[in-house]
């Protein structure tokens, strides 16, 4: 029986894009957050360049507010696959006076990441940053190109994006500019989970149901942690929860869940009526939160 390849079109597209990045740019990097999307990108990169090693490093912008499980996972993955990891910390920028810590009930280091990212790009002269953002996540992301040109301030000018026709990617840039690349733009949350299941990709434990100390605020479950500001009257409880999206502890809400396997997670998502980013408190700050952050150079 003839062995014929049956490749998923979304997987083919992502691999095609990753190869274009390596071909068109001098110094690409993969922005790694330890979340399912960036983990998926690593697997796609492995498959794209096999049997050669992944020809670019991983960059983690460490806010210092990560779930400890995510950091452990990151380190294990990097060691297992023999990848090069660069970590740049927001804390260093705060200590060095280049960034100011937010204070108060809703404080987080989410917007400080941009600064540290831009610093890292400058330091290493990265000309292409590969990220796991998807268009189905949020309104402003729905408009993004596959190759998103940023100026040397990392800014995104949404009114002047380059036309992107067919699969012809134009990554030509001037010195000082760089491009954000989004190979899984057309993947939905479910597509990512199905891929994780199919490929048996390992992911951080916090995605699965576990017991955690949490407290309720504004209708969301916030994580009880040293990094998260908590008022006197906000009661901590212990419940079985999981995290549907992995941002910082300070801006990711937990959802009550018994889903302890990928299969059950997928089922839960199918039945769910809150979108993935709906559980991201940072998006709720203003209607145009993401877009404003992108104009400032965010992912």
């Amino acid at each position, binding site marked *: 029986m003839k062995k014929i*390849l049956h490749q998923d079109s979304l997987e*083919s597209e992502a691999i095609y894009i990753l190869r274009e990045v390596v071909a068109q740019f001098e110094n690409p990097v993969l922005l790694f957050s330890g979340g399912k999307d960036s983990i998926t990108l690593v697997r796609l990169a492995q498959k794209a360049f*096999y*049997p*050669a090693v992944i020809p670019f490093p991983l960059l983690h912008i460490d806010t210092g507010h990560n779930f400890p499980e995510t950091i452990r996972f990151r380190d294990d993955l990097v060691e297992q696959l023999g990848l090069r990891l660069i970590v740049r910390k927001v804390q260093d920028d705060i200590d060095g006076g280049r960034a100011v810590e937010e204070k108060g009930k809703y404080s987080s280091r989410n917007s400080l990441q941009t600064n540290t990212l831009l610093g890292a790009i400058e330091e290493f002269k990265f000309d292409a940053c590969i990220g796991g953002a998807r268009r189905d996540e949020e309104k402003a992301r729905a*408009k993004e190109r596959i190759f998103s040109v940023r100026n040397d301030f990392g800014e995104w000018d949404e009114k002047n994006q380059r036309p992107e026709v067919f*699969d*012809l990617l134009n990554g*030509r840039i001037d010195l000082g500019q760089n491009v954000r690349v989004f190979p899984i733009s057309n993947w939905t949350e479910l597509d990512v989970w199905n891929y994780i299941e199919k490929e048996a990709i390992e992911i951080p434990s916090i995605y699965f149901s576990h017991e955690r100390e949490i407290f309720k605020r504004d209708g969301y479950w916030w994580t009880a942690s040293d990094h998260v500001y908590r008022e006197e009257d906000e009661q901590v409880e212990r419940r079985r929860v999981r995290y549907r999206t992995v941002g910082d502890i300070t801006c990711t809400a937990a959802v009550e869940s018994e889903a302890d396997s990928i299969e059950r997670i997928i089922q839960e998502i199918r039945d769910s009526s809150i979108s993935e980013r709906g559980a991201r408190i940072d998006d709720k700050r203003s*209607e145009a939160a993401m877009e404003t952050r992108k104009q400032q150079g965010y992912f």
Partner: protein
Amino acid sequence: MEVLKIATAGSVDDGKSTLIGRLLYDTQSLTSDKLEAIEKASLKNGLNYLDFSLATDGLVAEREQGITIDVAHIYFSTPKRSYIIADSPGHEEYTRNMITGASTSTTSIILIDARKGVVGQTHRHFFINNLLRLKEIVVAVNKMDLVNYSEEVFNNIVTEFRELQAESSFKEQNIRFIPVSALWGENIAERSSEMDWYTGPTVLEHLEGLQPEDTTALTQARFPVQTVIRPKTSSHHDFRGYAGKISGGSLKKGDAVTILPSLTTSRIREIYFHDEKYEEAPAGSSVVITLTDELNITRGDMIVRSEELPQEKRTLEAALCWMDTKALTPGAKYLLQHNTCRVLVKIQGIGSAEDPDSRKQLQLNELGKVSIKLSRPLFVDTYESHKDNGRFILIDPQTNYTAGVGFIE
């Protein structure tokens, strides 16, 4: 899961965004937090109904103006398959955005306001669909609620459109006309109770019934080399593979191939996807190919089957859509990107056989015919015979902007 990509086109006020929002709502693809956001925003705008267009208008500026200015990609799915909608602006000043969105689609929904019928923009949208050779067209005659759901009005519009079809359609194209009201959800997903005279499918039923393109039947495989995989590790010391995406037809292990532009010949030794070897890979597959000979192949080269060579050209005649604010003038130099190959080119003439005015310019969003001189030969097909090997973009070497998209004739 299978994915179907749809482009949407229509005038600003034709209700295109509302139609999409409605499709999302009716397929339960609007999550509760998104619905809540729409409710909030609708109320804030002083409306007493849910404005589904708010589900798709993403950018702040356009939300304020109430129009779409870029391409938004919207995802929804049914048990049968996943859908990606490229929601493009209707305004003539955004033709380039519309082409961007439509270029990766296989289906198109053209919206017509039932009160206005076929207008200038309808002509243009249909023309663009034909330029791109989109096979499946759905003409949604919207706002039927404002014309009393009249069968006569609908039929008149169909007749008007058929005249357009006679002028510029192509043989393999299928056009379906559906009377709808996006605002009230009539014939979008739910069959309308107001239009008994219409017996065809709803928009969703029609989309669900579309067959995906059969990639196994095609011929003329083209394999533009993206990058060379040379691990040089002890386990894969001599491995030299060519990575790329196959288009047009399948490639098989053992196929006699020709490498372009050198015209060297060889045979496919192996076809890899990750660590597995395959005897055959269909069009659309991203693979790594090794050959039986040690050759010096680089990015920009193309591997094809020896009996199916594309045409070698030193000049190109093409239909062009101009996408730059800086007009195209004869004598101008650009970089032409054809698959993974970039060559410097010079624009010889703008116009057509009927109108060979060589002093003509092409302005932003204009469509015209050009003749282009290449600094070195390219191996191409006409767009009509091979979409993937018959199109290109023009890049302005000074600004790096993607200035135009061309369809080889």
